[in-house]
């Protein structure tokens, strides 16, 4: 009983720490809550003019996440359909371990891969890519999230009962019809839950973006250039001169609080969708 209360304790500690430090952040003279929420510039480390608008960092995170999801969700879903509906046993025995390995690779390795393989390759294709760019990091994050999407979606697809497939075959459906028009819609809640989980992972990803995406916090929309994500900013602060307990130091906590709120909402949303649509086919 005491052991399980530890997990509640953990959550409470997280909330308390983030809240108190964030409040301390907003108490400093240089920052106001309004400016944080609405400000479009973030350069806390510039000596003279410091800005603490959160949106450039959020923008960076979102850009990486969007690129990652454009890769992970379609590919992950189609691979799941392949595994669930088409794959013969021998190919399954190859593909499933491959996906498990991809899922188990530490994120620092993916960051290294993005920096040393993906980026040079992209630059070969089109010179406009900077050395640090959002697209490269996004691709690596996508590869990292693909196994998550695939395995949860596959579970959802497998859970669709045989009777539904038989009903469709009995009406003269081809395998394509059955997979796309009956099974996938029936498994939709599980697939959406998979996507939300992947998004939460992508948003919280640190090492890949720290190595490959860059350290310039600004609002841009070109994935060929560099941008700083929320997590990369936190790395920058904590690697820097941490004994200076100024507004910059506490800004990391404020960013962490924002991040926590985002992933918390995603988790709750995924949970709700799972529960609400659970009795899909009975």
């Amino acid at each position: 009983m005491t052991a399980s209360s530890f997990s509640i304790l953990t959550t409470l500690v997280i909330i308390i720490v983030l809240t108190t430090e964030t409040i301390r952040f907003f108490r400093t003279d240089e920052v106001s809550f309004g400016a944080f929420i609405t400000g479009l510039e973030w350069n806390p480390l510039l000596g003279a003019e410091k800005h603490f608008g959160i949106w450039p960092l959020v923008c960076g995170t979102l850009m990486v996440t969007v690129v990652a999801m454009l890769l992970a969700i379609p590919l992950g879903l189609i691979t799941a359909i392949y595994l669930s509906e088409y794959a013969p046993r021998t190919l399954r025995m190859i593909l499933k371990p491959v996906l498990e390995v991809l899922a188990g690779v530490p994120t620092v390795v993916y960051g290294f891969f993005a920096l040393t393989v993906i980026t040079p390759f992209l630059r070969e294709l089109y010179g406009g890519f900077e050395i640090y760019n959002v697209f490269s990091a996004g691709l690596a994050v996508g590869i990292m999230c693909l196994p998550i999407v695939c395995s949860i979606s596959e579970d959802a697809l497998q859970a669709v009962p045989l009777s539904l497939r038989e009903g469709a075959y009995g009406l003269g459906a081809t395998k394509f019809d059955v997979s796309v028009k009956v099974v996938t819609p029936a498994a939709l809640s599980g697939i959406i839950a998979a996507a939300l989980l992947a998004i939460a992972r992508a948003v919280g990803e640190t090492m890949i973006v720290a190595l490959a995406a860059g350290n310039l916090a600004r609002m841009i929309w070109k994935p060929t250039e560099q941008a700083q994500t929320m997590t990369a900013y936190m790395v920058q602060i904590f690697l820097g001169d941490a004994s200076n307990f100024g507004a910059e130091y506490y800004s990391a906590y404020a960013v962490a609080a924002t991040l926590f709120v985002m992933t918390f909402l995603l988790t709750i949303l995924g949970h709700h969708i799972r529960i609400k649509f659970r009795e899909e086919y009975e």
Partner: protein
Amino acid sequence: MTIPAGSAPRGKLQRALKNHAFRWFCTLCAAVSVVVLAILLGSLLLQGWRHLDLEFIRNAPSRKPEKAGLGPAMWGSIWICAACALTALPIGAATAIFLEEYKPASPFIRKLHGFLQLNISNLAGVPSIVYGIIGLTAFVQMFGLVGNLNEPGFTVGTPDDWYYLQLPFGRGVLAGGLTLMLVILPIVIVSSQEALRAVPNSLREGALACGATKWQMVWRMTLPAAVPGIMTGAILAMSRAIGEAAPILVIAGIVFIRFTPQHLMDEFTAMPLQIYDWAGRPQDEFHRVAATGILVLLAVLLTFNASAVLIRQRFQKPLQ
């Protein structure tokens, strides 16, 4: 079939073609994963094989890439993973036992259970760097309540003794291990729950029928039966912990560590952090060193996962 007026039959050839094309499309997409993994491993081998030798594993990092080694980082990883495992396993298993074995009767406690389960799912989704920050505040600095890093509020022994302890823990091995424990705790809990669920009810009923109390049944019957599953889950959680760089980065920072930790409060570095350090350097040669480090890390992970699979297969004998 009567074709209703105002409609036309779909071409059978078209439908058959669509069917085949979709199958090929799915196969192609599935092949992408295999190709990506092949490229990943291939590039790592290509870049990293040059430095791969025993010297590499023993040496300390240095300014010269040829002399750089993973030694202290490996020891650091071992220390923090040990600390992590020793704390995460008991707490995680106990929580799982509470959730699975002591099923609530009253609706209020059932709601509490549901809340607890949701809480654990939420914790599983928290980014690991946030755990790093929490670990920094709670373990390294201890909220500033017992002194600060330069003047610890409470000490046992001196930094030369192996049993040296201080409060706050400072940027030491213990703080790192505990932070990692926070990261993997949800994983340990969930996999232990699965292991407990897999124990058939007939075993539990048999124990109770012999006159055992609930606690005796759990401790002597259910838990031993679930041990292989719990161990497998723990090993998989540990392989996640070994690869985590972000929380360690916050706790330890990038420090030039040349020796293995001597006591629980000692400074340290870990393998993924060392790799991050090398990878972030501008010199190409250090990139190759990083690749070598990655190969060593992956080899360690492979061993872990293989042993988990072996344990699972060995003890997979059905429990009925």
